[in-house]
C-alpha cells in the first residue's frame, strides 16, 4: 500500500509514528514537507529564544525516518493533487502515485488586510524561519507591538521582551484579552499582571494602517490614535492551509478548512485530512492534542480498524508568559443551568472562577488566573464528572478547616480519566505500568509517552505513581537515584551516625554502582553540612559539581567567575581599587551583582589561583557564589546614615553573613537586614529576613525570588540580636537536616506538614526539644569555617588542579573566545 503524507508538521509526524507502530505489514510511506527542516515541536517554538536550537526542537532526526523505511522529502511542497490518476506533483517536479493521501498541511497565520502589512519589520509567528527573522531584526528595534491578545499573541509578546524589545504593546480588537478562553473579570486581572511584566495592553483597539517608509515606523488605529513602533508581530488567528484541497475540489468549509468525517476521510475516500487543516463539525482545532487524536484515528481508518473522532476538549493552559492562565470545560457557562463561584484577590493578582451544575455536584468549567496549580486536577474533575465535595469552593480555595480534604485528588479519578492529553494516556494505563514495576517518572515516560508532549501532566503522573505504590502497600521512598535507596534525610542521618567523611566511603557503605551526577553533589553537600571540612579534601573534589570542584561558576565558553565576599555590601575604597586592579590585570568583565557585590567574569581556569592570591592578600575571601551555601546578607544603610533607621542594619548584616559564610545546605541561602519597615533591603524576599522594629528585630523566614517568588513569613517579633541569631541557627540547621536536595527554604516550608505553625513551634517553642542540639551543631559548623580559596591557593597539590591541560599547565584553552561589548569583553555566543 502506498501512502503519501503532505506536510511534515507536528501532526504529520505523529501520524508516521503511530502508523509504523501499529502496522504489521510493510507500507510504502512518503512524506513531503514544505519547510526545510523535518518536523519540530511548534508548541515549544518560543524556547528557540531561550536557548533551544532548531535541533533541540526536532521531534525526530532524519535518521529516524530512514530507520523506519519512510521516504522524507523536505523543502519540496506538493503543488497539485490529481484525484483521477491518484497522483500528487511537487514543486521540484516529482510526480508520485498513492493509494491513500493524507493531508496534514496545518495552518498559516491569518494576516488581516491592513494597509502596510508588507513592510519590513512586520512578522508572523509560526515557523523557525519566522523566529530567525525576528531575531535578526530585534536588535534594531526599541518599541514593539503584537496584534492579537490571544494565546499566541501573548506568547509572541513575551518573546519580544526576551529578545530585548522591552517596550512592547499588545493590541487586541476585542474588549478583553484571550476572548475565547477567559471572561472580562479574568481579563482585567491578567491585564494588570501583564503590565507588571512591562507589557502595555490595549483592548478594543482596531488597527487601520501600518505606517513607515520601507520599514514599519508606527501604527494608526480606528480611534485616530497612533503608536510609534519599529517591530510588529501579527498574531490575529490561524487560517487552515486548504489551498491544495480547494484546487482538487474537495469539500471545504465556508470559512476554510478541509471537511472531514469521524474517520478523518475527506469527500474523497482515498484522501484523509488531519491536524489544523481539518474541519470537523464546523470546527478547526488549533491545538496539538486534538491533532494527535486525529492522527490516531486516521491510522486506524487506513488499517481498517474501528476508531472515531468525537471532537475534543479545548481546555488550555498558557505557558511561558510568567503569569498562570488556564481555562477548562465551559469557562463562560452561566444562566439557569449553572452557578459560578468566583474568587478574586486584586492584591495578589489572582482570579479563579468555577462553574458548577445547579445541584452543586458537577464541575462544568472554569478559569484560573495568577495561580493555576489546580488546573490539571480541576480539568480531570470536570472531564470525568467526579462528584464535587460538599463545599465546592474548597477546590479553588483549599480546605479552610472542617472535615473536607479540599476536594477530589487523583484518587477519586476513574481509570478512564485521560491524564496526558497530548499522548492520550489514561490513569488506568499509568497505574497499570506502576503495578508492573515502572516506579519513576522516567520509566512511565518511556513506556507510555505520558508527559513527553507539553509536560503539563507531569506533576499528576508523579502523584499517580506515588498513590499507586502506596495503595500497593509499598512504602513510597523518595530515593535519591539508582545508586542510593534512601532519601536525603535518611542518608544524612546514616552518614552522621557512622561518621563517614568521603563520597567513596558513603557509596561503599550505603550505595551500589559507581555513583552519578545526581548523588555525588548531594552526598558532597551532606558531608559539608555535617562536618564542614574542606570540600576539596579526601578525594571529594571529583564528587562535586564543576562549580564546587573549581570553586567558581563555569560560564559559556568554559571560563569562570570570581566573586569575593563583600559582607553587607560594605567596601572600602582600597578594596575597590584592588578589585579594579585585578580585573584589569586579568582582563575580567566586571559587574555589580543583584546581591550587592562585584562579580568578575571570564577568568581562565589556570588564572583562578593567582587572582585569588591577590584578592586574599588584600583581605578578601571566597563569596561562595558557586556553592549551595550562604550567598549574601543584603543590607540597607541603616541607622548610621538613614534618617529613618532604627538600628544599625549594616553591622548586623555583616555579623550574620560572617557567621554563616561557607556553610553548605540543600540549596543556596540568602538573607537580608533592613533598618526599618520601609524594607530597602528586601529582607522579606530572602530565606531569612530581619527587619528592625522599635523594640528589636522581626525575623521572617522562607522567602525567595527566582522563578517562583514567595514572600517570607513572620517567625518571631521584637527579638534582641542574640535571640534572633539563636533562632536563625535553629531554623537553618533544621532546614539543612530535613530538606530534600535542591529545595529552597520556601519550597521546603510549602511541603512541611503543619507549615509555618509547626516550624514556629520547633524553632521558637522548641516543641521537639532539639533547640540546643541544633544550636550546637550550627556552632560547630561556624567554628570549622576556613576560606576554601585560601586553603586552595596555599596547597600546591590543590593548586595543580587548576589548569586546563594537565600536560601543558601554562597553556590556556585556545578555544576560549571573547567578543567586545561596551568597552569590556563578553563570552562568545554558543555555537
Amino acid at each position, binding site marked *: 500500500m502506498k501512502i503519501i503524507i503532505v506536510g511534515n508538521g507536528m501532526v504529520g509526524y505523529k501520524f508516521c509514528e503511530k502508523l509504523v507502530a501499529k502496522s504489521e505489514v510493510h507500507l510504502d510511506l512518503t512524506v513531503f514537507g514544505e519547510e526545510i527542516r523535518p518536523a519540530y515541536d511548534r508548541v515549544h517554538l518560543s524556547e528557540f529564544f531561550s536557548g533551544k536550537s532548531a*535541533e533541540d526542537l526536532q521531534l525526530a*532526526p532524519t*535518521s529516524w525516518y530512514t530507520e523506519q523505511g519512510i521516504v522524507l522529502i523536505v523543502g519540496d511542497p506538493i503543488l497539485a493533487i490529481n484525484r483521477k490518476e491518484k497522483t500528487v506533483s511537487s514543486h521540484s517536479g516529482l510526480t508520485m502515485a498513492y493509494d491513500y493521501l493524507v493531508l496534514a498541511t496545518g495552518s498559516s497565520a491569518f494576516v488581516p488586510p491592513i494597509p502596510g502589512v508588507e513592510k519590513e519589520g512586520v512578522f508572523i509567528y509560526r515557523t523557525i524561519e519566522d523566529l530567525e527573522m525576528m531575531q535578526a531584526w530585534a536588535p534594531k528595534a526599541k518599541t514593539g507591538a503584537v496584534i492579537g491578545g490571544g494565546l499566541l499573541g501573548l506568547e509572541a509578546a513575551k518573546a519580544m521582551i526576551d529578545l530585548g524589545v522591552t517596550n512592547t504593546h499588545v493590541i487586541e480588537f476585542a474588549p478583553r484579552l484571550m476572548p475565547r478562553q477567559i471572561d472580562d473579570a479574568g481579563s482585567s486581572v491578567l491585564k494588570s499582571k501583564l503590565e507588571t511584566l512591562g507589557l502595555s495592553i490595549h483592548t478594543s483597539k482596531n488597527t487601520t494602517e501600518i505606517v513607515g517608509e520601507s520599514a514599519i515606523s508606527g501604527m494608526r488605529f480606528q480611534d485616530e490614535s497612533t503608536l510609534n513602533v519599529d517591530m510588529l508581530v501579527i498574531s490575529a488567528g490561524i487560517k487552515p492551509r486548504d489551498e491544495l484541497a480547494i484546487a482538487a475540489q474537495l469539500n471545504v468549509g465556508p470559512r476554510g478548512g478541509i471537511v472531514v468525517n469521524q474517520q478523518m476521510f475527506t469527500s474523497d475516500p482515498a484522501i484523509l485530512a488531519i491536524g489544523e487543516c481539518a474541519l470537523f463539525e464546523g470546527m478547526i482545532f488549533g491545538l496539538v492534542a486534538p491533532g494527535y487524536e486525529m492522527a490516531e484515528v486516521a491510522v486506524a481508518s487506513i488499517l481498517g480498524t474501528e476508531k472515531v473522532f468525537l471532537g475534543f476538549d479545548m481546555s488550555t493552559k498558557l505557558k511561558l508568559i510568567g503569569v498562570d492562565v488556564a481555562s477548562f470545560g465551559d469557562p463562560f457557562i452561566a444562566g439557569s443551568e449553572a452557578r459560578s463561584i468566583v474568587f478574586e484577590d486584586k492584591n495578589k493578582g489572582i482570579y479563579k472562577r468555577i462553574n458548577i451544575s445547579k445541584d452543586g455536584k458537577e464541575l462544568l468549567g472554569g478559569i484560573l488566573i495568577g495561580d493555576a496549580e489546580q488546573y490539571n486536577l480541576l480539568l480531570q474533575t470536570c472531564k470525568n464528572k467526579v462528584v464535587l465535595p460538599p463545599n465546592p469552593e474548597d477546590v479553588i480555595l483549599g480546605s479552610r478547616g472542617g472535615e473536607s480534604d479540599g476536594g477530589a485528588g487523583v484518587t477519586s479519578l476513574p481509570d478512564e480519566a485521560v491524564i496526558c492529553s497530548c499522548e492520550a494516556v489514561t490513569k488506568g494505563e499509568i497505574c497499570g505500568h506502576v503495578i508492573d514495576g515502572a516506579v519513576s517518572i522516567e520509566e512511565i515516560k518511556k513506556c507510555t509517552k505520558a508527559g513527553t508532549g507539553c509536560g503539563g501532566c507531569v506533576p499528576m503522573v508523579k502523584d499517580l505513581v506515588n498513590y499507586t505504590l502506596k495503595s500497593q502497600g509499598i512504602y513510597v521512598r523518595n530515593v535519591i537515584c*539508582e*545508586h542510593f535507596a534512601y532519601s536525603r534525610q535518611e542518608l544524612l542521618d546514616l552518614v552522621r551516625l557512622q561518621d563517614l567523611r568521603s563520597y*567513596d566511603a558513603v*557509596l561503599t557503605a550505603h550505595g551500589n*554502582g*559507581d*555513583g*552519578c*551526577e545526581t*548523588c*555525588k*553533589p548531594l552526598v558532597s553537600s551532606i558531608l559539608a553540612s555535617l562536618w564542614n571540612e574542606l570540600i576539596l579534601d579526601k*578525594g571529594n*573534589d*571529583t*564528587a*562535586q*559539581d*564543576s*562549580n564546587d*570542584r*573549581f570553586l567558581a561558576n*563555569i560560564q*559559556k*565558553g*568554559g571560563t569562570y567567575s570570581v566573586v569575593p565576599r563583600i559582607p553587607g555590601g560594605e567596601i572600602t575604597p582600597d578594596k575597590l581599587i584592588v578589585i579594579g586592579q585585578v580585573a584589569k590585570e586579568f582582563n575580567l568583565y566586571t559587574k555589580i551583582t543583584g546581591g550587592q557585590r562585584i562579580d568578575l567574569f571570564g577568568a581562565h581556569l589556570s588564572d583562578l589561583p593567582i587572582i585569588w592570591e591577590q584578592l586574599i592578600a588584600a583581605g578578601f575571601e571566597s563569596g561562595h557564589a558557586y556553592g549551595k551555601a550562604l550567598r549574601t546578607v543584603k543590607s540597607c544603610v541603616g541607622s548610621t546614615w538613614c534618617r529613618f533607621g532604627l538600628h544599625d542594619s549594616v553591622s548586623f548584616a555583616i555579623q550574620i553573613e560572617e557567621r554563616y559564610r561557607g556553610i553548605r545546605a540543600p540549596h543556596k541561602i540568602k538573607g537580608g537586614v533592613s533598618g526599618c519597615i520601609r524594607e530597602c533591603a528586601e529582607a522579606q524576599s530572602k530565606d531569612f529576613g530581619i527587619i528592625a522594629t522599635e523594640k528589636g528585630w522581626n525575623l521572617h523566614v522562607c522567602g525567595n525570588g527566582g522563578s517562583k517568588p514567595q514572600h517570607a513569613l513572620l517567625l518571631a517579633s521584637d527579638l534582641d540580636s542574640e535571640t534572633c541569631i539563636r533562632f536563625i541557627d535553629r531554623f537553618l540547621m533544621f532546614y539543612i537536616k530535613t530538606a530534600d536536595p535542591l529545595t529552597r527554604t520556601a519550597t521546603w516550608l510549602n511541603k512541611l506538614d503543619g507549615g509555618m505553625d509547626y516550624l514556629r513551634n520547633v524553632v521558637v517553642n522548641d516543641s521537639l526539644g532539639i533547640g540546643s542540639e541544633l544550636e550546637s551543631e550550627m556552632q560547630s559548623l561556624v567554628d570549622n569555617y576556613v576560606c576554601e580559596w585560601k586553603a586552595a591557593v596555599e596547597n600546591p597539590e590543590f593548586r*595543580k*588542579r587548576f589548569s*586546563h*591541560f*594537565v*600536560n*601543558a599547565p601554562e*597553556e590556556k*584553552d585556545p*578555544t*576560549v573566545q571573547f567578543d567586545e561589548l561596551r568597552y569590556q569583553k563578553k563570552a562568545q555566543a*554558543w*555555537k
Partner: protein
Amino acid sequence: MVETTKQHWILACPTHDVPENGGVCVKVGDQQIAIFNFTRRGEWYATQNECPHRHQMALSRGMIGSAGEEPKVACPFHKKTFSLKSGECLSGDECSIATYPVEVREGNVFLLIDSHEL
C-alpha cells in the same frame, strides 16, 4: 591517492596527574582529549574533551559515574551524559563523542591516536 591512517600509542601524562574518580584534559597536537581515572572500577577511559551539545571544551571537568553497568561522564554545562565506552549520548540526544583506547604502563597513561590527529 590512497590514504593510510596509522595509529600510535602516545604518552599522555603520569597516572598521578589524574585525580581519583575524575578527569583531566591533555593536549595532543591540536586535539584536546579527556582522560578519566575511574578508580572505583579500576578502569581508565579517554574521550574527546569537547561536549557536542554546545561545543564546550569541558568533559574532562565533568562528574563520572554509572548508569546500570555503563560507565559515563556528565558534562558540567547541562548535564548531558555520555557513555565512556561507546561515546553514545545517554540523555537521549543524537550526538555522540569519540572515545580512545587507553593503557597504563609503569605509572604512565598512554593513548592510541590516529597519526593524522597529531
